[in-house]
């Protein structure tokens, strides 16, 4: 620990976002960076706790106090190597992680946790800048071959570790580019796509083979893969979106959020879409149904597309601003979260139930909603009741459904392989990430349901180890 009194002498300082007026004009990353001195000061706030609750709360068990200390000593190389020892992609988590670590930081007891995520991001950026991140191909190859299907954070994490262990890894991606949700789910203003490419170049140099536009089960036959590879890992995510089957669902102007976001990501890349294909919020009254992160991404994207108005509605009641008594530190707080996009000019409403899409000529014009009330029934289960007379019609030209994902897409591969599913429809695995087919492993959202990038990364690490042990046998 660099400075035992750092937390007393230095206040938490966030880098903050670019000014709203400025940032909504482009798709560049909204978050700013601190100067070096401030960053080091921020790292010095870490108290090197006897029990680092941050480390406990982090799904990848990042050894946070250790790299904070390295930052304090300005040893970026050491900091980077500590980071990488538990996480192959600090550049992703440093940008998009909701940072459970900071919620559990001891300094969060008094609302000023260490800027752990930002510090992480700056370490990895410094490490790239100084050339510490270099390809390190394994010295020996084991001769074992592994196919990873899906190139999201889980798949990449699996691929990286297995490759480092000397196995030969090929990654199959059905889309036209590697990255999965990282590439097409998260808007550029949160994660610039060169960050992914930069990492991929190193992976390629290290010997991982990437195959895009390879929808296994369609372009590639699974049987072939099974023959060619010693083990296969499914990291196909939980891509089946939750739908809203109410009247008017078929109207033009109701889309799944992911379709909307993906298209924008491609546009930023330079792809072009015809007017018919294009889903744009420009000049429209637009409503996002769903109060989560995807919804928030839709808000930010719509604002950049110059929507006329943006409203985000959520079925659940508004969370409290502060922790409630029965949701104490160091646990994850169920409190109101406000993203950079929310600050860019949108309305948010809670406890709103959507009842019907109204349209004219097959085109969406409005959304009928009503206010609801949540209470507990006698079994302690939450239940909702409509508040009589609260029905209203919201003007809407574009509605995006961002209500989460139910489970992996079953059609195609999953069905074809006949893998066992759990009651939620996720791919069932044992403790080692092994599916009902011994040679097939599954990692990330596909087995757990949709979750955080950082969980996917950690799941990838664990699955990689299982595969490694499976191959060693």
């Amino acid at each position, binding site marked *: 620990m660099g400075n035992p009194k750092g937390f007393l002498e230095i206040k938490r300082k966030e880098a903050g976002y670019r000014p709203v007026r400025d940032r909504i004009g482009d798709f560049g990353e909204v978050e700013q960076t601190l100067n070096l001195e401030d960053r080091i000061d921020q790292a010095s706030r870490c108290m090197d706790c006897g029990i680092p*609750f941050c480390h406990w709360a982090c799904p990848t068990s990042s050894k946070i106090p250790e790299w904070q200390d390295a930052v304090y000593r300005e040893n970026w190389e050491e900091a980077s190597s500590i980071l990488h020892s538990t996480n192959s992609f600090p550049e992703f988590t440093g940008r998009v992680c909701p940072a459970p670590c900071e919620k559990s930081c001891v300094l969060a007891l008094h609302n000023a946790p260490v800027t752990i995520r930002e510090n992480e991001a700056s370490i990895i950026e410094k490490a790239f800048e100084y050339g510490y991140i270099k390809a390190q191909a394994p010295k020996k190859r084991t001769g074992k071959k592994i196919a990873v299907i899906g190139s999201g954070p889980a798949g990449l994490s699996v691929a990286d570790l297995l490759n480092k262990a000397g196995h030969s890894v090929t990654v199959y991606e059905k889309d036209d580019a590697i990255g999965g949700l990282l590439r097409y789910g998260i808007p550029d203003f949160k994660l610039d796509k060169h960050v992914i490419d930069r990492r991929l170049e190193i992976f390629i140099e290290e010997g991982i083979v990437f195959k895009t536009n390879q929808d296994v089960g369609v372009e590639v036959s699974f049987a072939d893969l099974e023959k060619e590879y010693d083990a296969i890992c499914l990291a196909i995510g939980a891509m089946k979106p939750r739908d809203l089957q109410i009247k008017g669902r078929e109207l033009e102007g109701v889309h799944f959020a992911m379709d909307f976001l993906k298209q924008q990501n491609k546009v930023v890349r330079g792809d072009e879409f015809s007017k018919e294909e294009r889903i744009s919020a420009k000049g429209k009254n637009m409503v996002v149904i769903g109060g989560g992160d995807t919804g928030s991404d839709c808000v930010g994207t719509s604002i950049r597309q110059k929507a006329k108005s943006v409203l985000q509605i959520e079925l659940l009641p508004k969370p409290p601003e502060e922790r409630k*008594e*029965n949701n104490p530190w160091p646990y994850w707080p169920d409190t109101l979260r406000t993203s950079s996009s929310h600050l860019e000019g949108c309305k948010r409403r809670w406890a709103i139930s959507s009842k019907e899409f109204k349209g004219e000529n097959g085109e969406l014009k409005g959304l009928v909603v009503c206010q609801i009330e949540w209470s507990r029934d006698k079994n302690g289960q939450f239940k909702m009741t409509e508040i009589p007379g609260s029905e209203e019609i919201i003007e809407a030209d574009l509605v995006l459904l961002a209500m989460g994902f139910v489970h992996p897409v079953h059609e195609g591969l999953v069905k074809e392989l006949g893998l066992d599913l759990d009651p939620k429809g996720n791919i069932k695995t044992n403790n080692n990430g092994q599916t009902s087919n011994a040679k097939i492993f599954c990692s990330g959202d596909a087995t757990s349901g949709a979750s955080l990038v950082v969980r996917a990364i950690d799941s990838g690490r664990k699955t990689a180890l299982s595969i490694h042990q499976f191959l060693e046998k």
Partner: protein
Amino acid sequence: MPMRNLRPSQQGLYDPMNEHDNCGIGFVANIKGKKSYEIITRGLEVLSNMEHRGARGADNVSGDGAGILMQVPHSYYKKLGIKLPLPGKYGTGLLFLPQDETEEKFCIEVLIQILEEEGLEFLQLRDVPTDTNAIGEIARQSEPVIKQIFVGGNYEQDDLERRLYLARKQAESYVRATKMKEKGMFYIPSLSSKVLVYKGMFASDQLGPYYGDLQDSRMESAIAMVHSRFSTNTFPSWDLAQPFRIVAHNGEINTIKGNRLWMQARESLLKSEMYGEDIKKLFPVVEPNKSDSASFDNVLEFLFLTGRSLPHALSMMVPESWNEKNPIPDSLKAFYEYHSTFMEPWDGPASLVFSDGRYIGGTLDRNGLRPSRYVITQDDMIVMGSEVGIQQFKAEEIKEKGRLKPGKLLLVDTQLGIIIPDQEVKSQLTYRNPYQNWLKENRLDLKAIPVEKRVPSDIGDQFEICKTTFGYSKEDFERVILPMASAGQEPVGSMGNDSPIPALSPKPQLLFNYFRQLFAQVTNPPIDSIRENLVMDLTNYIGAVQKNLLDETPQHCKLIRFKSPLITNTDLGKIKKLRHEEFRHASIDTLFKAAENGKGLEDALDSLCQLAEKAVDDNKNYIILTDRNVSKSMAPIPVLLATAAVHHHLIKKRKRMQIGLVVETAEAREVNHFALLIAYGASVINPYMSYAVIDRLVKDGRLSLEYKTARKNYIKAVDKGLLKVMSKMGISTIGSYLGAQIYEALGVSKEVVDKYFTGTSSRIDGVGLKEISEEILCHHTKAFSEQDPFENQDLLNSNGSIHYRKNGEPHSWNPQSIGLLQWSTRTNNYAKFKEYSTIVDQETREPNFLRGYFDFKKNPIDVSEVESAEKIMKRFCTGAMSYGSISKEAHEALAIAMNKIGGRSNTGEGGENSKRFYSSARSSIKQIASGRFGVNTEYLVNADELQIKVAQGAKPGEGGQLPGFKVDKIIAKLRNSTPGITLISPPPHHDIYSIEDLAQLIYDLKNVNPTACVSVKLVSENGVGTVAAGVAKANADLIVISGAEGGTGASPLSSIKNTGLPVELGLAEAQQTLVLNDLRGRIKLQTDGQLKTGRDIVSMALLGAEEFGFATSALVVLGCVMMRKCHLNTCPVGIATQNKELREKFLGRSEWLVNFFTFLAEDCREIMAELGIRKFDDLVGRSDLLVKRRDIKKWKAETIDVQNLFHLPETDGHELNGVNATIKSIGEVLDHDLIKQAEKALHDGEKVWIDKKITNTDRTTGAMLSGKVAALKPKRVLDEDTIHCRFRGSAGQSFGAFLEKGITFKLEGDSNDYIGKGLSGGKIIVNPPVKSKFKPEHQIIIGNTALYGATSGEVYFRGMAGERFCVRNSGAKAVVEGVGDHGCEYMTGGRVVILGSTGRNFAAGMSGGIAYVLNMEGRLDYFCNQSLVALEPVGNLEDIHELQEMIHQHLMLTQSSVASKILTHWEEYLPHFVKVIPYEYKKVLEEKKLRKIHRKLKKAQAQTQVHE
């Protein structure tokens, strides 16, 4: 015939090896050798007057032992009509014989036969008249048949003595080797032509009545040496009563294990012209299974009867300290150094009296912790003893009064009729041989050997291999080595140790970690190695060929001298290169074949031992054990195992003395590692990997020091740490620590321990060679394989042994347990608490704790039948955490909560604001710790429990300190000190150096507050049961057994991890020993140490605890999140900090604690219901309800056996819990009368005058009266001198202890130790009686440790004081005419005027107050420990007035002639006064003055402005 009640053997956790005894000793002699019966009766009187220093057993009649040694009373035998040769031509002695007649006869026959073989003539046996009714039941059951034997031999007397000795030793060995049932009863107290010993298992007043001879006035002797024993047990032990054949010993030999082993190792080399081949008949020199004192006597007798004089032999065995801080001649230093090369000191507190019939004398060890006072009368009588006043003389009869000084001898030659002073005795010794020259010519100094080639610290490629093979973690680099190398300090940690013991850890561990340091508690004191370093020494030697103890030649000191046991690579290179024929070495690899695992390890150890033996046979002088050559196929043997194996193998082969052990290892890195290697035989260690790490840290820029400086710092840190480890056990020199095995093995199999660590105790079995080698191979394999990307490993692995890591060592305080506990208690949610307790219990059963092995025998009842939570909560206490270490807010929250639930909070050692005494935030347990901070009379009377903290779990055997930055104004006020000044708590209580001292302190406290229960806090270690039994006999009401795992606040890391034992072991041992002694019923047992749930509480109750302490858990409830930053004052939750900003962050509420304790009690109730126990009392001690789990099948954990914990001693009807534990009374004391006479004063504040006679058995006079006065507060405070008492005589110990304001004591006579202890505003004046003929200023008038912990008041002593005058005084004013060693030690306030000389180490650790010393000899600068203080002339006017005024008062109150002379010649004397003032204190005073001036200035300015 009833079963003989012999001493119980080792059973359960009780081990007779742990028995201790402390005592009172003394002698009476006629200097001119005039024999009389009076000397004997006076000797017996001396004994009776020391009754309070001995103890009685459970039957309250049996004493622990008493005895007398006198000259052979030839004329008495003549008068009895026994036909004997001329005096000096026959020997005699008592025989203790078996009760069984056949065996008795057999023993006598054996003895007679051996006597005849030695050319002696059996004359006759005499029945010794004894009175069985004079002794207690326990003593009677083991009473031997006692006969007296007379043996003729017409030889020159010394020759006769040797023959008697030979015969006695052989008879002892012979009987010992038989299979006799009662062979243990055969014992020969003495067999000599010069002296005769009477002794037995008596209380001190039973000796005379028991032996008819002693009542016969026809007996006569010029010498009577007596001893009264206070043993920790009350098992039959007639033979262990003292005196032994030559000495009587008060104290304890801490290094006894090592001393015995070395003596054994030496036997093969012993050659004596006097004895020739016969010398073998004397082996073993040390009788097995006897006490430390007995072993000491054995060796002293051996040295004496093989030709050395008694002073010579004693100076070898108990040398005084001779390092540069001691003012003794160089020739004498050379004598000591020379002898230290072949005889290690028998180290430990010792006051010894000895006699061979002609000479009689006494000596003290270098620390001088035991009191020894003497009086010489006008008619040539000398009386010496532990106390003054044991013999009464008229004032005019006394010629001289004095005391023994540390390391000095007092010798009386009754034949020449003179007293030989120490200086003369010692100077005679130095003339024996040209020791100085011998040393100069033979002894090499390591530093003086020229360097041929530097050996680099960089070890190249081997670095990575060693790093992994020896399991170096990031914490080793950053939390251990780095702080040592940068600051020269051992690293500090906080909040105890909540990780499993190594055997239960799921991770591989270093073998070092399995060993726990032992430490001194109660029966002997730890030493302050920093403040009292004048007695400490790390010098060691290796390499010698000539080790015949009985000879003295220049070759004896042909050795290399090391100033520190750690040597650099280059130094090791030097000694490897030495080609001198007397310095040859053999290097032996300590490696084993990795492929062969456990078997390979065993084979390698065998061959290692063989190679070592061969090295001895090849006449090598030292062996270098090295692990430098680790390779893929060869893994390292744990260096500790290798060292111990070689050491013990060579001892067994009697080849150890011939060779020195040097260890070159990458494994050792921490202080404890080095301490262990030395404790198991290594003289010198080269930790090359530590140096390589330091080198790396320097090169990486982590250390901004030069490598050399960093290494120096590291070695310094290790040296300091070693001194501390030694001093914890009360050991001063590395010479005696070497091989002393001051450790217990925890979780190592008996086979491994018995074979390689012979003599070490290991009580729960544990890992064998198989597991040990597996642990090494875990690391070793990794070192030679590719890096595994799955290991989450960066550059260095952090294994989480100190700070929690998710994949590291388990910690029982972890995010989940903390999160759930806080959640449940804050929201008063019992269901959440059950979640917490379920998780914690599950982790305990991993197993992470020994109690995790327990299952309960169930017999369910409905929970409603179990007694209420309210009742159970009364058994709960909070741990002692001082206000100072924790914040006011936290401290008060604890007190309020405990008062609400009817439990007790513990104020810790920092005092308490008196306002709180009378509020709901009163702590009902008031602690008395070694610093005595804030301990005054008012504090003591406002308590329900007074707790004497002997040790604390986190750092037993050590003192503490509150860093200056935590001492703010309020804390300073409570502790009577100065803000900003670091406060030191000494390692020992300076009034507890022994068990009888503890009894005295308990007695003191019971006087002050007779209604409070007195408890003694001990820490779990091997032998704590025995100590507990002693404490019970010392009249405590409650014993706390603390687990070593517990502990809040800051401590050195090595102490947190490596000292003390898990609470289960200590508690079970205490319970078993107390039950065995039938002492359990009269005392209560409390326990603490990582207790977290109802299951923990019930487990502990079944092992024997009836009360429970909680510290960490209570803090967690209040918001602690185990930052482990207590030592930095940066606690972010406002608990362990005094920083205002941080204290504001404290959120804790006492209600949360109430919830917590209620939940705990409910949790208990549910478990009690499962067990079918309705009342908690019925749970206590029921270890029969515990069953060992059989389902634990984990690697190392499976090897552990906890069966011994469940052992229930087979006793008939001994109580299992404290059913009869009422608060014990102290009986009649002088104060009862004082209080009666002072009634008017107490009632109306009227003045009263009282006049009383006093003797040394009147102890703690004034304390009870003071308690009454203090109880008047806060409403009334007495005026000065309201109660005025005059006493005449020799006052007992603790005269005027805790004397309150308003009371004045004037004593005409003298007093013993602890006068004015805890003085709280009273006034004490001590004067010699008017008719005295001696010069008072040259006589000792009060004992040792005067004014210990005094907080205010005044004292005037006309005469000299003993050692440690005004130790930890924080506010009293004192005038005295001379002091012994360590004067004003740890003083933090007050004024002391010394009108005479001071001893060594004056003002050590003094951080406040001022001493004015009359420095007529001009040597104060030498005698003063100047590390904290400045010496200045008394120049400024204020000081001069203060000094003058105090001397004036002294003159007025004592009529001191010295004071009168000084005042009348003021101008002449003033320049000779030196003002001793601590730097920090001076700074604070000056700042204060400046502030005052500034204020005045401002005021003045303001006024001028007004005027304008």
